[in-house]
Every structure is written in structure tokens, then in C-alpha cells.
């Protein structure tokens, strides 16, 4: 794959309308624009992250199939329809570079790409499935008529045990070594005889997915080697920064511009903190009220959040001053702390308008002694978390669900469940940003004031 700057891309690959699910065996012989390199990858990443969230929320296979179809449609279409396949392949290979670099990244990427492949395979036509089976060079063979007749009774028993329609006379079954389809064996979903499993057409996905996963796993290791040995250094000024940024990217709105629901005034803050702040911000807010002080990490996290919520700079200065002067005095506040607030609003220094922190960023921060920032779902002890959630009004059943998510390290899902419990309404998109929590909460609690949908 050649990366070029600002040139129109040309393709050599023919458009195969039957099997649009690529095998990703080799990097394509294409020229790719640098912008496309990044954009394609981010679009695919949105799909993978959508899948990741849905899986963690325990979505059923039928729901997953629909979700994947929607996500793919929403993100992976190219303005020129014939370019769809190329975008698919290019984005996959770019993300291989991004996600080959550590064991954790590889594991995540492998899981998500495998899930994506599984559902895209299932969404394909029978014709497409059959064609792909052949491409994959799987250790399976379609059984003959005689074999079918001999095994028919057993195959029917299996079908009945899962309330499936009985196999018809022309049904296709594949004979496969049982170790190739562990999930089917584990669930007793296939008839096994002398080491071979008899796999029905609709189950064939298991085979394909196992192969896909195995191939990709090996490829990622090789990619990592190549990356560390040559590519990273070679592309130091061009691709490497893009690749390194991609794995950390947050892909939602950035909340740096205040929303239409208007400005928030200081007197609203206490009430809003109780009703609409996510736990991380509520904790910081409460601590600020209690101690009249916050350390740097907390000031940044809460301060930027409040900016995103709609607190004007003048009000922010007044708010922080009112608190801090109770501890350090008004003069010291003006001297030591006011500057950084102005800095956050882009009125000082290089005048960058800083964006409020996303969940990803907050979760990965490391609060130390005396700090109150970071993600409480991650850092609070279970006891403290339960107490805090209780104060927010989370009921006992929801609390168990939240704690369960925390134990499995799904902190954002825990926050989402908290949101749902507190607002008695579902949050399908999941919480990715504290300001999103706030704006969603606001939308629910103040329907009269809601101008934008």
C-alpha cells in the first residue's frame, strides 16, 4: 500500500459484487491519500467501538446483527460506491498498524474485528457465504448424499434439540474436524462422529470466524514486528503520529462550544450538580464546596466541564473565587488561580480553547493523594462507590448492576447504568463524555426549555 499526499487515488482491484466481504489477506496495491488514511480508519474505528459497547452491554445476536448493519451503513459508505470495498480494506489495514502495538490493543482489535466479520458474514447471502467458504480454504468437505442418508436420523435429532427446521433432502452439511468448531461442540449443536462434526450451512459462520480470527492473530504479530523494526521509524514524520493518535481517539462531539440550552448561572450550580452532574463531577463539586479547594487535576477536570456546561468565564471566575478565597484568600486566588481559569477559556497564552475531558481521558488519569479527579467508578473502593451512588439516589437493584460492571472494568457502562437509574430512562448511546451525561440529563429534566432535538 502506498501512501501519497493529495493525489487522486486509483484502484486496481475489480469490483466483486457477489462476495463483498474481503479476506484481508494482503495489503492492497493501492495509492491512498494521507487524509483518507486517517479518515477511513476513524470511520472504521467508530464501527468497532460501537460493537465493543454493544457487546459489553450484553446485546443479543439478533440485535448485534442489526447494529452492525446500521453502523456499517452509517460509517463505511464511500461517496463513490465502487470505492466501498477499498475503504473497507484500507481502513482494516491501517487499524492493524494502530492496534498491533501492545498485547491489550491486539486483543481488543482481534475481538472486535472478529465480531464484525461474524455479523457481516451472517448478513450476506447464501451465495456469498458459499463463495467465501471456498476462498477460505477451510478443512471441511461437503458430505455426500450417502453420508447424509446415514447420518440423517442423528442430524434430525440435533435440529430438533434446538427447535430448528429439519434438514431437507438437499441440505448442505460440511464435515469438519471437531476441533475446528469448538463453540458448536461445546453447545452440542452438531452431530459428531469419529472426530468429525457435521456442520449445517447456517452454522458455517463458526468455521469461518475461527479461521479469520486465527489468521488475523498471526498477522498482527507480524505487523507488530514490522512496525517496531522499520515502519515506526521510517514514518516518524508522516504516519506514525497519526497511528499513535488513532488508538487514543475519542470520537464524539467535543463540547468545547457551549450548547444551545443556554448559559448556566452560578445559582443553578448546586441544584444542577445534584440532578445532572455525572458522579465524577459531582464528587469534585462536593469536595470543592466542602474543602474550598481542589488540586490541579480536579480544577482542570471540573473547570473544563463547567465550561462545556455553559458557565461563562466571568461566572466561572466568580464561582471559583468564592470557594477558594475561603481557604487561601481573595488576593491569593487572583494571583495564583485566576490565570489558569482564563487560560482554560482560551483568554491567555496560546489562546487554545481547551476541550472538556472525555471519559476515556478521565478514566486513564491517575489521581494521587489528595486528588479527587479521575473516574470514581475506577478509583473508589466498592464501599465508597455504593455510598456515593446511594446519595445520588440509585436503587439497590441498579446498584448491583453498576457494581457488577465496575468489577468487570466497564466504567463507562457503570456510569450509563447510573444515569439510567437516576433518570428512570434508558441511555442507549452509552456515556462517553461527562458533558454528554449533563446534556442528556438536561434534556430529560427540562423538556420545556429544550430547543434543539
Amino acid at each position, binding site marked *: 500500500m502506498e501512501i501519497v499526499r493529495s493525489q487522486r487515488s486509483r484502484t486496481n482491484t475489480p469490483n466483486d459484487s457477489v462476495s463483498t466481504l474481503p479476506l484481508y489477506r494482503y495489503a492492497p496495491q493501492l495509492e491512498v491519500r494521507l487524509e483518507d488514511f486517517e479518515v477511513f480508519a476513524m470511520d472504521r474505528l467508530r464501527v468497532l467501538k460501537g460493537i465493543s459497547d454493544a457487546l459489553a452491554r450484553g446485546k443479543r445476536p439478533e440485535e448485534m446483527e442489526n447494529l452492525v448493519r446500521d453502523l456499517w451503513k452509517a460509517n463505511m459508505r464511500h461517496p463513490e460506491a465502487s470505492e466501498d470495498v477499498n475503504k473497507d480494506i484500507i481502513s482494516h*489495514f491501517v487499524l492493524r*498498524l494502530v492496534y498491533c502495538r501492545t498485547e491489550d490493543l491486539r486483543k481488543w482489535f482481534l475481538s472486535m474485528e472478529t465480531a464484525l466479520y461474524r455479523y457481516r458474514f451472517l448478513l450476506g447471502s447464501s451465495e456469498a457465504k458459499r463463495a467465501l467458504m471456498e476462498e477460505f480454504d477451510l478443512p471441511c468437505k461437503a458430505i455426500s448424499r450417502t453420508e447424509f442418508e446415514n447420518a440423517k436420523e442423528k442430524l434430525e*435429532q440435533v435440529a430438533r*434439540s434446538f427447535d430448528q427446521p429439519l434438514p431437507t433432502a438437499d441440505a448442505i452439511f460440511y464435515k469438519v474436524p*471437531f*476441533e475446528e468448531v469448538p*463453540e458448536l*461442540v461445546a453447545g452440542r449443536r452438531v452431530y*459428531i462422529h469419529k472426530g468429525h462434526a457435521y456442520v449445517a450451512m447456517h452454522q458455517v459462520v463458526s468455521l469461518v470466524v475461527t479461521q479469520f480470527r486465527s489468521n488475523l492473530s498471526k498477522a498482527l504479530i507480524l505487523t507488530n514486528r514490522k512496525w517496531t523494526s522499520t515502519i515506526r521509524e521510517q514514518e516518524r514524520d508522516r504516519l506514525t503520529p497519526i497511528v499513535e493518535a488513532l488508538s487514543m481517539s475519542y470520537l464524539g462531539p467535543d463540547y468545547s462550544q457551549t450548547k444551545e440550552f443556554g448559559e448556566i448561572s452560578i445559582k443553578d450550580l448546586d441544584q444542577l450538580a445534584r440532578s445532572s452532574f455525572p458522579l465524577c463531577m459531582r464528587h469534585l463539586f462536593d469536595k470543592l464546596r466542602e474543602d474550598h479547594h481542589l488540586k490541579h487535576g480536579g480544577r482542570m477536570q471540573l473547570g473544563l466541564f463547567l465550561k462545556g456546561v455553559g458557565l461563562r468565564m466571568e461566572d466561572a471566575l466568580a464561582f471559583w473565587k468564592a470557594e477558594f478565597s475561603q481557604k487561601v484568600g481573595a488576593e491569593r486566588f487572583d494571583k495564583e488561580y485566576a490565570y489558569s481559569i482564563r487560560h482554560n477559556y482560551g483568554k491567555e497564552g496560546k489562546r487554545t480553547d481547551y476541550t472538556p475531558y472525555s471519559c476515556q481521558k478521565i478514566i486513564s488519569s491517575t489521581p494521587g493523594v489528595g486528588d479527587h479527579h479521575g473516574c470514581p467508578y475506577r478509583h473508589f473502593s466498592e464501599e465508597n462507590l455504593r455510598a456515593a451512588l446511594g446519595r445520588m439516589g440509585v436503587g439497590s437493584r441498579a446498584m448491583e448492576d453498576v457494581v457488577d460492571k465496575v468489577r468487570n472494568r466497564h466504567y463507562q457502562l457503570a456510569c450509563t447504568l447510573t444515569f439510567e437509574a437516576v433518570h428512570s430512562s434508558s441511555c442507549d448511546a452509552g456515556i462517553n463524555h461527562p458533558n454528554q451525561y449533563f446534556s442528556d440529563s438536561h434534556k430529560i429534566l427540562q423538556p420545556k426549555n429544550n430547543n434543539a432535538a
Partner: protein
Amino acid sequence: MTKEESKNGSDDMLIDGPKQGNVIPDGFNPNYLKVYYGRLFPHADIFKWMSYGNDGRHPACDKSYFGRREFSFTLDNDIYLRFQSFNSESELENSIKEKCPSKIDIGPVYSVDPAKRHAYAQGGDNVFAPVERELIFDIDITDYDDVRYCCSGADVCLECWPLMTVAIKVIDTALRDDFGFDHILWVYSGRRGVHCWVCDGKARRLTNEQRGAIADYFRVYKGNENSNKKVSFPGPLHPFLVRSYTEVLREFFEEKLLLSQNLFSTEERYEKILSMIPDESVTSELRGKWQENRRSSNSKEDINFFRWEQLKNTLQSGKQKVQGLRRCVEEIVFAFTYPRLDMEVSKHRNHLLKAPFCVHPKTGRVCIPIDPKDCEELDPTTVPTLSELLRELNTGDSRMDVDNATLTLPMFFLVAEWEKTSLGKSIRFFRSSFLQPLLKSCKEEMESGYKAKIQQTKNSLSW
């Protein structure tokens, strides 16, 4: 006897005693072990087995293979030595004789000699990790405590031991017919269970995921103290379960277990079975019948049969509109008789398992192989014990069965020691039924693998 004393007490002291009035008291004794390892334990056979043909001269032999196998020894005072490895038969034999472990466990074959494991990282490419391991199963009768009334805990008797026999039949048939495995060794665990070693090459190379899949294929019982119904069949049964039921379980339940465990004879016992039926009208109907029937019962045996028939009729009669009830009968039979495996043992390649021919420290019984085709013959109460074997050695009691011929005196001294004891039968069985066919197949595999390897193809994967 203290450790110092036992060191001084040599074999001779025990064995050269008077031939009459053989004073070897029963029970387990570390001194006995020394004699056992010195004269009876089949070191060479274990070595041959664990080598899987790699101790030969074929160019395809992997000389490092045996040395990469982990053994672990449990010594007196529960000192546990892991990651023992040996490079030859004599190293293995000498170490066992010297250390005299009360238990020998066999672990996997690792990527490198376990003794050198610290030189290798846990992650990345150069790892110390299992590469081969037999597919193993561990069935323990204590897992059946909720369905046996004769014994509990570590006790075993002839009433409940048949549960193990049934487990062997079900699993063995599935391993051969369904999974296509041939080289399967069943071993009595010495007290209250059985172990299974599947030694085909394919089995040894299975990943943890694949082992887990096989274990799940065998899994039927899914419960804990909180659920009444631990076996549940939402739909018609898979062919494997059908076969197990029609060929083994139903007959065993109806003709043996019902009686031996008196499953319906008391209210407490029949209530347990009634709790597995999720339909109030059925259970109250049956309960009504049984509470009044108590008066008119003839003999104890009849009651169990009689009530089981009543239960089946009620459940399977046309009256039952509820689909779920039709399989209740099977659910009950499976709940009592279907094998209960320890999933963790089978799923992880690095799990250690006791070696065959060890002696169980609590019972003194030897872990002898079991012939799956003849497993009803195994009586756990008559399995040879360590002290019995030593007595046999002493008296030179010829329990020899070599081709049913009588041996003349000179030949007597050329025969292996174990032939003079009841261990002989077990070792002969181990060799002829298991070891020899296994080694033959290993040789064939090695030869064909070698030919294939000669025509290597380069594997090219671009990024």
C-alpha cells in the same frame, strides 16, 4: 517411626523376615513405598509412555521431548516439589527411588525444560508454556453426594461405586465414537474416583479452548445448592445424550440404582425427586398416592419400582399438555446417573494429575488401570494394596498367570518381580491394551509426519 529411624531401616529388614507369619501390617507406610518403588513400580513403562516414541532412533525423534515433561512429587510432611524433569529413564527412576514421593503427578510437556523456565519470559515470543498434554478427566464420587444415600464424602461401597462404572461407559463411548480417539487409559484413583487419560496425538495438541469445548459437550449437570432442578432439557436430546440414555443410563437407573439407593422408600427421598418436577398438579397427585400407599406395601424393593412406574405413567401420559414435563423422566435419570466431571481439570493444559500406579496414601491402594470394556469387574474394595503386594513379594506367592502355564523353578528368577504379585495383571493389561498400541501409532505418526516435513512450504504472510 521418625525420619532418622526410617532411613536406617532398609528394605532387607522387612523382606528377609520369616517366610511364615508375614508381618506386614496393613495401611500405608513410607518404608513400604521404598520397597514398592524399588521393586514393583513400573518405571520403564511410564518412561516409554511419556516418551511417545521419542526415545527411539528414528531421525524424527525429538530427543528433548521427555525432558520437557513436568513431574511433581509430594513428599512426606506435604512438601511439594513442582517442575521436576528428567532426561532419561534412569534419571526418573533414580529420583523416584531416592525421594520416595507419596504421590507423583504428571503435568504437561512444556516448550522448554521446566528446570530452565526462569530464563524465559511469560509473554512475548520466547515463552515457557505447555505445548502438549493428554486430554484428562477426573471423576470423583464425592461430586455425587447429593444423590447417594449409602455413603458420603470419601467413603465408597459396592452400592454407589457403579456410578463410576456408568460414568466410564458413557464417557469412553463418546471419546471413541464421537471424538474418534483411540488411546484411552482409565485409572482407578485409589480411593473414590477414576481418572481418564486420552493420549492420541490430536488430543495432546488440543488448546485450552478446545478442551473446554469437549468438557462442555459432556456437561449436563448445572446446579448448586440453590437450584432444585440441576438437569434441564429444554428440547429433545442430542444424539450423544440419547445414546447414553438408551444404552447405559436408563437401564442402570431402573435396574440397579433405584434399588441399591432406595430412591423412593422414604418421604425425604421421594420428595427430593418430586422437587425435580415443575408441576404442582403432578407432584401433589403422586404425593397423594404415595402417602396412602405406605400402608399397603409388600416388600421394600417393590416400592421403588412401583413408585417409579407410577411417576413415569403420570408424566408421560397423554394428559400432560405441558411440553416440558415429557422430558422430566430423562431429567431425573440423568440427574442421578449421568457423569459429573471436574471441568477445571480438563480445561487447562497445565493441570497436574496423579500418575497411574501410584499408591493412595490414605487407603494404600494402587492406582491401577481399568478396562473400560470390563469396568463392572473393578471392585474398589479388592484393589491390591501396598501391604498386600509386599506380602505377596515376601511369600513369593505365585499368583502368576503367565499364559496359564506352570513355571519351573529356574524361570521363576527371570520373571519380573511384579509378575509374582497381583500387580502383574494390571501391568500386563497396561502394556497390551494401552501402551503397545499407543507406541505403534506414535511410530506411524512420526514416520508420516517426517515425510511430510521433508516437503516444507514457506509460509508467507505480508502485513
